[in-house]
């Protein structure tokens, strides 16, 4: 990393806030898997084990000026950025692909199901800040698997050439569905790629939320001050299945998981809080029960959300709908709504 002044260390209230956010993420994530098993939602991609990487990085975003570009697995980032969780979970209830939160106002782009689909968007948005004379930073999320896509390379090259204020935040969770990083990422490190584009990069322990926050703050400081793009590779582990329809037993053993997953990031932060006196047991319990209550509330509200009306299929295709589409909507109304 370049010689930017290190941001101040995390305060005890900040650490406690991080714990609250991580606990809330964990609770909602775990609950969502259960909801899928109960048939309440058709599918879910758990981020179990990636709470530190997600919450730690999302925590740094300044919602007045920055913008985050998630994949389909960024529950913790969304939570840390204050995205409406019911609107977020709506994508997993198959109500609306991009979710039902307002992405423009949340500064959190719609859920993105194309692997690597949004990395270039982040670069374009970031360059827009330069053109407009703003100091916003784009935060681009992608995985170890996504790093294989040509778009990621084009994005890093564009960012390097344009010195765009973008932070590439790679969660290397060891797996892309069934393919482990060593058969995915030639050379073994996404961070190592950055140098080839003149981009500074840092590998960070993605299960250590403090390390993640600090690295992300350094990266934002550099990008914001015109120092160009930064890449962070947060080393973490996908503790759950790829998605609720995945069966990890086919490609890794429970023993592999135990060996490779390391310490649970949530547990790790709990221990640290206790050790440093930043929080006590009562706080942890309170945070966990608040998290559980929070998840329960999301469940209730999500359950109450009915399907979107079919006419919305037609309404959001264009800002200026075509006559042809209006006719199709009318025909649909007659034939399917029987009105």
């Amino acid at each position: 990393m370049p010689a930017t002044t290190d941001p101040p260390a995390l305060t005890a209230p900040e650490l406690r806030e991080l714990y609250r956010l991580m606990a809330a993420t964990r609770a909602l994530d775990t609950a969502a898997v259960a909801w899928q098993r109960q048939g309440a939602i058709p599918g879910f991609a758990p981020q179990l084990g990636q709470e530190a990487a997600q919450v730690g990085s999302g925590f740094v975003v300044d919602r007045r000026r920055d913008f985050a570009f998630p994949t389909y697995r960024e529950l913790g980032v969304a939570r840390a950025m204050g995205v409406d969780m019911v609107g977020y979970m709506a994508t997993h209830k198959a109500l609306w692909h991009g979710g039902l939160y307002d992405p423009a106002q949340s500064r959190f782009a719609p859920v993105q199901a194309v692997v690597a689909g949004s990395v270039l968007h982040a670069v374009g948005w970031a360059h827009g800040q330069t053109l407009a004379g703003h100091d916003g930073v784009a935060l681009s999320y992608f995985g170890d698997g996504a790093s294989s896509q040509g778009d990621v390379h084009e994005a890093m090259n564009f960012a390097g050439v344009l010195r765009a204020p973008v932070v590439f935040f790679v969660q290397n969770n060891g797996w892309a569905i069934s393919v482990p990083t060593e058969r995915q990422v030639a050379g073994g490190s996404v961070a190592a790629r950055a140098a080839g584009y003149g981009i500074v990069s840092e590998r960070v322990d993605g299960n250590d939320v403090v390390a993640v926050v600090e690295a992300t703050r350094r990266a934002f400081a550099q990008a914001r001050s015109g120092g160009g793009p930064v890449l962070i590779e947060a080393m973490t582990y996908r503790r759950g299945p790829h998605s609720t329809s995945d069966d990890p037993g086919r490609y890794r053993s429970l023993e592999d998981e135990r060996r490779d997953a390391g310490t649970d990031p949530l547990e790790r932060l709990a221990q640290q809080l206790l050790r440093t006196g930043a929080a006590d047991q009562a706080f942890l319990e309170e945070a966990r029960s608040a998290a559980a209550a929070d998840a329960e509330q999301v469940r209730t509200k999500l359950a109450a959300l009915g399907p979107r009306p079919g006419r919305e299929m037609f309404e959001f295709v264009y800002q200026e709908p075509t006559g042809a589409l209006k006719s199709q909507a009318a025909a649909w109304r007659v034939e399917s709504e029987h009105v």
Partner: protein
Amino acid sequence: MSETTIAAPGRTGADPEPAAPRQLSMQQALNLALADILATDPAAVVLGEDVGTLGGVFRVTDGLQGRFGAARVFDTPLAESGILGMSVGLAMAGFHPLPEVQFDGFAYPAVNQIVCQIGRMNYRSRGTLPMPITLRVPSFGGIRAPEHHGESLEALFAHVPGLKVVSPSTPEEAYHLLRYAAARPDPVIFMEPKSRYWQKGEVSTGRRGADGDLGSRVARPGKHVTLIAWGAMVARCLQVAELAAEDGIEVEVLDLRWLKPLDAEGLAASVRRTRRAVVVHEAPLTSGLGAEVAALVTERCFDTLRAPVERVTGFDVPYPSGDLEDEYIPNIDRILFGIQRVLEYRRG
């Protein structure tokens, strides 16, 4: 199987003795077809995302890596253009690649390699570098999946010079069409109707003659109107025909199978009998393959047609989220309305 045993692409092993017909799901039929292809064609290789250890997200390649080795059935990094571009090179080296794209919507990143390379290398090289590539694409909607997991790309593929395109509608069709496609010296896009993967049907493994694999197929005969469909829509049209029969309407269901080349003769033969046609597909209406089918039928049957060919299709909107997909995919009602329109059409 060691790597050097596939040293001589082109050698062909004997087909296994045909087994008695058995009940298989389409996923199992495809798996069996791949196994038989790998067993009989030493130049065949299967590649794609998660096709190895996992056996594919739909398990179509289940067990193949264990049986044929990691040299012939291998996981690639997560990059579709890479998978298809690599397949071009493998074909140039004498192999018969069977790449998988995990879902329809992820064929888009590979369009450049598919259109400009796979479709054109034989032409560019004046026939000296053929592209015997069978690209398997789990296709169409109906499984309440995330965005980009329910797309219908047949109109795009059918427009591309140099490609052939086929889509099976039953386990039996799946087995035979995949084997037929994989034995071709030309590139074939093989569109698997993913919502039908788990439906069972009788599958006979003895090879049927090439004729049995070509052209369209009358899935149900009828005399009042021809319903033209492919992939998952064939089953739905058969349901519609069943319902229509209750009202005395005899619907002929034509399973188009080949989307390129289209079976112009089979289409014309059916419509000449029924004098009315409705084409059904999941893809959006505008510039969908239904337009080509309608144009073809009209060109050949202009005099016999009693009504313009109806198109019952997906709308000109992005494939919607699971909760709305039943509103998007042509449903029984909408197909019945289409039939009604061609039956009630009166020249003005």
